[in-house]
């Protein structure tokens, strides 16, 4: 277990180093930052001076190591638009994205998993058609389209939910979500919901036909115990990785959904930063998102090892 853990941590660090390199060099591929930062009618001499000031004339490797050291201390440089450290802006927007991501993951889990479970347990029944339909719908319908429909129906027509912005509720020192999160979370949960329904269904169907389920039945166990102890436990193993990967994806912020609902999260900030060619901010968000995904994948693998003894002890 310990060896597995250590080797996975080392792998994750290597991935992060790779991400860091890509973020840095891709920024340099998109053009000269000095040219963009200088005012529109700056002379070539002024741009050259700026480039010199920013240290852009030094060898690339030195620039990269400086960048890497800064990043390790949490410094991505200042945003050119907000004139604030990029990291501060990211941390400021993070709670909104975490709120949206957690709630939409929660919605997709409490609907998708039971739906897949019921469908997989009763193949070709009504509930199975529903589960398969939800899986197909969730994975094929674009979430921005659903977002617009939800706004139209629940926001404008029925007026049950606000259609943009984030409101919070402070209670005993905690910042709690209000109903303003409902429509964006529903739109965002659609894909994950469909994926979970489909994977749960196929995992349950696969486990149900395993020999050890026949053994469990031959022991005279109750249907309830067979489902909870034997089927669910085994079927949940592949779901762990989907939930982990999806949460990472949700946490890096959804550009479409956050933009449509003016949700003040990371996705919105990223869209903004790209539009303004705010390099420090784009770099910061890109690296931060990768970092979150890598950490979540690491945690997923740990959870996997806990759930499946064959991974835990396997060499």
């Amino acid at each position: 277990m310990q060896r597995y853990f250590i080797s996975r941590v080392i792998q994750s660090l290597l991935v992060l180093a790779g991400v860091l390199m890509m973020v840095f060099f891709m920024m340099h591929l998109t053009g000269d930052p000095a040219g963009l930062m200088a005012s529109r009618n700056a002379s070539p001499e002024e741009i050259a001076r700026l480039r010199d000031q920013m240290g852009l004339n030094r060898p690339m490797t030195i620039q990269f190591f400086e960048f890497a050291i800064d990043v390790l201390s949490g410094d991505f440089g200042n945003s050119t638009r907000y004139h604030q450290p990029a990291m501060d802006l990211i941390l400021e927007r993070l709670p909104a994205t975490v709120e949206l991501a957690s709630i939409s993951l929660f919605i997709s889990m409490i609907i998708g998993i039971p739906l897949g479970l019921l469908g997989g347990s009763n193949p070709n029944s009504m509930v199975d058609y529903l589960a398969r339909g939800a899986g197909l719908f969730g994975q094929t319908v674009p979430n921005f389209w659903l977002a617009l429909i939800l706004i139209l129906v629940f926001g404008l027509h029925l007026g049950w939910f606000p259609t943009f912005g984030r409101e919070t509720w402070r209670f005993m020192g905690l910042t709690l979500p209000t109903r303003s999160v409902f429509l964006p979370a529903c739109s965002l949960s659609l894909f994950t919901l469909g994926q979970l329904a489909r994977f749960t269904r196929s995992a349950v169907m696969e486990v149900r036909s395993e020999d050890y389920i026949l053994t469990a039945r031959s022991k005279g166990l109750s249907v309830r115990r067979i489902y909870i102890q034997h089927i669910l436990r085994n079927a949940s193993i592949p779901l762990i990785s989907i939930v982990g990967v999806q949460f990472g994806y949700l946490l890096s912020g959804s550009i479409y959904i956050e933009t449509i609902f003016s949700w003040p999260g990371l996705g919105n900030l990223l869209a903004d930063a790209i539009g303004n060619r705010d390099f420090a901010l784009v770099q910061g968000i890109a690296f931060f998102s990768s970092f979150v995904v890598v950490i979540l994948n690491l945690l997923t693998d740990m959870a996997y090892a806990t759930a499946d003894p064959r991974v835990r002890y396997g060499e």
Partner: protein
Amino acid sequence: MENLLEVKNLTTRFHTFDGIVHALNGVTFHVGKGEILAVVGESGSGKSVAMMSILGLLPSPPATIDAGSAKLFTKDTAVDLLTLSKAEMNRVRGRQIGFIFQDALSALNPVMTVGSQISETLVRHLDFSWGRARTRTIELMNQVGIPGAAQRLNQYPHQFSGGMRQRVMIALAAACRPRLLIADEPTTALDVTVQAQILELVLRLQREMDLSLIWITHDLGVVAGLADRVLVMYAGRPVETAPVDTLYDHPLHPYTRGLLRAVPSLDRDTKAPLESIEGLPPDLLSPPCHCQFAWRCPCVFDRCWQDNPPYLEVAPGHIVTCFYDLDNGRPH
């Protein structure tokens, strides 16, 4: 000898996309108390399907049991297993009848410790507390020859060797001291030395617990050293059943005779080709209404193409389904 299980005219079909598979066509047999019955036959002859039908373990759909009865005799009553409700059947499985599967690696739950897999049967049927079940599980594991049971209890199936896993499977099936143990080719997946150990273990348990045993196998060598009685199956129907010595000394069905001839002996001429029975078993999707073995039978005559032969008791306990009298070289 009193009977423990009496199966009559068991008929099981599978409803598939290609049509109806006639898996069992009127299977009749019995097992006495404390008796060891070996069921032999080639793959697809219905050995396992018969046992799973009795315990209601076949998935339905596609399987249906269309006719027959399977009476289990307990102290003073007899119950027909095929008419039990699901809840009643769950009280028979694991409690009255234990099942040992062929491949213990796939038959044990990979994410549960072997201890809890044995214990849950005890908790379910004997109303043990988990603590008491644990103690009993250690005893059982010792009894089936797993060294260091108290530690190995908390290990997972993949941490056991093939032979040890099969011992776990046996402990699990015998946990509640059932009256009948059904072993579905329990040694096929093991290498030869381990096979012998498992064989001895099951025989020892059978004696110690005074169980009846149904041993399904391909291996006629195992049958000779193990069984009291043998049931030979072919295409979903028993073709011959007899006490083990009678069957080996004096087989009466051309199929049984062919099977026994096909077992290579050590002193045979190594240059001579191996004996085999010509042809293939019939397609059970459209079984003929005459003798299933007619195509491959060396003794076939006109009657065989008209009717299905009935069960014919030629001597006490020796039943054969054949129109031809091999002893006298002429039809009965």
